[in-house]
């Protein structure tokens, strides 16, 4: 088992801000663990602009925003970065196990920061009935397929949910030459930013249905159609409003959930973690709208962890 002052799990904007802040606050023995090949987290697939206005005072794309932090980290030799490293186990005494191609390692730092991001809610979590053909994607997966892998998930999409990711993906589909037949939102208004509604939906004339829900997904091998209906305040179908929309793709964009499996495994309540030297920041703490606030809050986490380490020493 290796001892360290600080270990940070997750190399997205949260983890990167945290290691930099910890270093600025006097910590010198730092390990940053990231399961992907690169640092940057979700920002790598967000090639649209919309990042950095608050923090840097300029409009950047996701990768540009990430790059500023990656460069900073590279310039600090005290921060060891371990990519392709997957944290798999955590116990209440901060013993962390991670895997890397070729090895399995344990490390016990004086303080630990978890910045593991979030995952998307799925079609299954909102219990949309029907079949299970190819062509149903979470919006984030579709974004990754298009922006990183160069693959077009479908040609005629219905998007469930009008959060920012859903809205941004609607535009992305159009730009790729695909069609967006509808955005279906069960609430009376969007959860997304006004700027995204205007720039991603209205400018492209995409129909957006509020107070509507997808009732069922059809198709044996590939999605063929969905049925949609208007709902009342109780979210129940209003009789006589049912329609069918033909499509080959359903994008599900119905919210994000903090990814906290490791902390749960350790049996540490998230709000009590600080007492045992375990800190949580970024989307794994709570889901943020702007990455800029992720950065500022995570800097605080880095500072708090640094103070914790120093107080433990003295």
């Amino acid at each position, binding site marked *: 088992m290796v001892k360290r002052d600080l270990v940070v799990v997750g190399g997205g904007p949260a983890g990167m801000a945290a290691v930099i802040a910890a270093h600025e606050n006097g910590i010198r023995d730092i390990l940053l663990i990231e*399961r992907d090949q690169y640092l940057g987290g979700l920002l790598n697939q967000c090639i649209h602009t919309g990042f950095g206005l608050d923090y840097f005072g300029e409009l950047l794309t996701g990768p540009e925003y990430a790059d500023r932090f990656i460069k900073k980290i590279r310039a600090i030799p005290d921060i060891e970065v371990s990519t392709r490293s*997957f944290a798999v186990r955590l116990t209440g005494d901060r013993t962390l196990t991670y895997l890397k191609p*070729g090895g399995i390692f344990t490390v016990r730092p004086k303080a630990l920061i978890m910045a593991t991001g979030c995952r998307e809610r799925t079609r299954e979590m909102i219990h949309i*009935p029907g079949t299970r053909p*190819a062509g149903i994607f*979470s919006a984030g997966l579709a974004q990754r397929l298009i922006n990183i892998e*160069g693959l077009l998930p*479908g040609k005629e999409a219905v998007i469930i949910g009008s959060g920012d990711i859903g809205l941004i993906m609607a535009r992305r589909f159009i730009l790729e030459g695909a069609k967006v037949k509808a955005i279906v939102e069960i609430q009376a208004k969007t959860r997304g930013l006004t700027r995204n509604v205007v720039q991603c939906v209205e400018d492209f004339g995409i129909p957006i249905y509020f107070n509507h829900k997808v009732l069922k997904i059809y198709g044996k091998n590939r999605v063929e159609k969905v049925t949609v209906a208007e709902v009342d305040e109780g979210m129940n179908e209003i009789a006589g409003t049912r329609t069918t929309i033909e499509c080959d793709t359903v994008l599900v964009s119905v919210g994000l959930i903090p990814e906290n499996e490791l902390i749960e495994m350790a049996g540490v309540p998230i709000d009590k973690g600080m007492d045992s030297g375990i800190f949580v920041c970024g989307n794994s703490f709570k889901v943020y709208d702007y990455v800029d606030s992720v950065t500022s809050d995570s800097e605080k986490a880095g500072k708090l962890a640094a103070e914790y380490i120093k107080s433990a020493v003295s």
Partner: protein
Amino acid sequence: MTRYDVAIIGGGVVGTAIGRELSRYKLRIAILEKEVELAFGVSKSNSGIIHPGTQHSPGSLKGRLCVEGNLLTRKLARELSIDFKEVGELIVAFNEDEYKRLLKLEKDARALVVPGLRIVDRAWLKKNEPNLSNEAMAALYAPTAGIISPYRWVYDFAENAVRNGVEIHAETKVENILFKKPDFEIISSRDNFLARYVINAAGLYADEISAMAGVNNFKIRPRKGEEFLLDKKKEDLTRHLLFPLPSKTSKGILVTRTSDGNPMIGPTAEEIEDKEDLSTTEDGLKKVLEGAKRLVPSINANDIIAYFAGLRPTAGDDFIIRHEDKVPGFLNVAGIQSPGLTAAPAIALMIVEILKNNGLEMKKKLVFHKHRKKEFHLFAIVPEKAKGLIQKDASYGDIVCRCEMVSAKEVREAIARGAKTMDGIKFRTRAQAGRCHGSFCTPRLMKLLSEEARMPLAGVTKRGPGSEIVKKERARG
């Protein structure tokens, strides 16, 4: 045209169990399956329970083969290195009336010689099944009930059968059966085959296959069952498999657990027309929740992470397993509804007898490889061993599926063992089967499949032609 001694139509649990059993003998055997991979029919969507035999009338084929199958499964599971967990079942009575019916069930089960039966009272239930409803009055306890992974069971039978010489033809849909003395000629979507004996194990389509051979004496009616899986975090929800008292057509809504540790609730039982209708419904969810909560009130719809529907291929009340004397050499194994998964090994032995009695010469091979090597899942073994494996092969440390912690090594192995689709990978490794449903690992799995099976990324399918994951590959630039 290739000539076989025995052609088995259908690569589900019944067809592959028969294939594996027959592979002990000096016979040339083929399994013909219409889908891209085996286990893509009824055998992929069921409750995965190895039933003890508590719910059948003593005179039925179902009852006898279930009890026998349960016993055989234990031995086979060891030989074929598949996890079989004996967890026991409780059939729960909620009132005096149900209690009386429980006693009748016990009597029938005793007549079938189901081992270890016992009626347990409220106090026992409180202690041994803490989350069971307080309304529960008593239960019939059958300790020999167990759980198994139904698709892996099929793959293991098939793999071992192949090792012993059985040939498998996938994407081979049987379209007609002609009799050309002394053989049958089987016309398929791919090749034509000659076979001295034909065994019809075609699940939902067994009636159509039988009709092709000129035997028109039964009809398969699909009975839909919807099932809902809960998050693994709830693994400890129950200790036993929980059943209500059965109805005329089904065992009722159960609270069970898959062999991978997810609690599962269901199935419904609904007669339908369309043999391809695998859709779940809002109504189904409602019924299942209602039934499951009657047994375990703390069950919460928010814990549902997946759902599916399966179709029971019914042909009357019992299984149909017989040589059709009208068409010598043609055997029907039809109407294999529940407990078909359990009974499959016993059905296979019964088929051996039927073949012997109908003129097939059956000599045992000198060498029969009865064992199958177990594959490793990194998190199911002790850390020291895991360390050794990763050091030997780095790709064990390359985690592809974050929810189920599946490594690139396991995925590559699954492809080498026959996975050709994303579902095939999921069934074998569990990658994509966790809470995020492949949101994270899909791109990586597609790449692995494309590399190992040498297909373009745009050619990767969920479960065969027509189910391509993406529409096109964009030129980069």
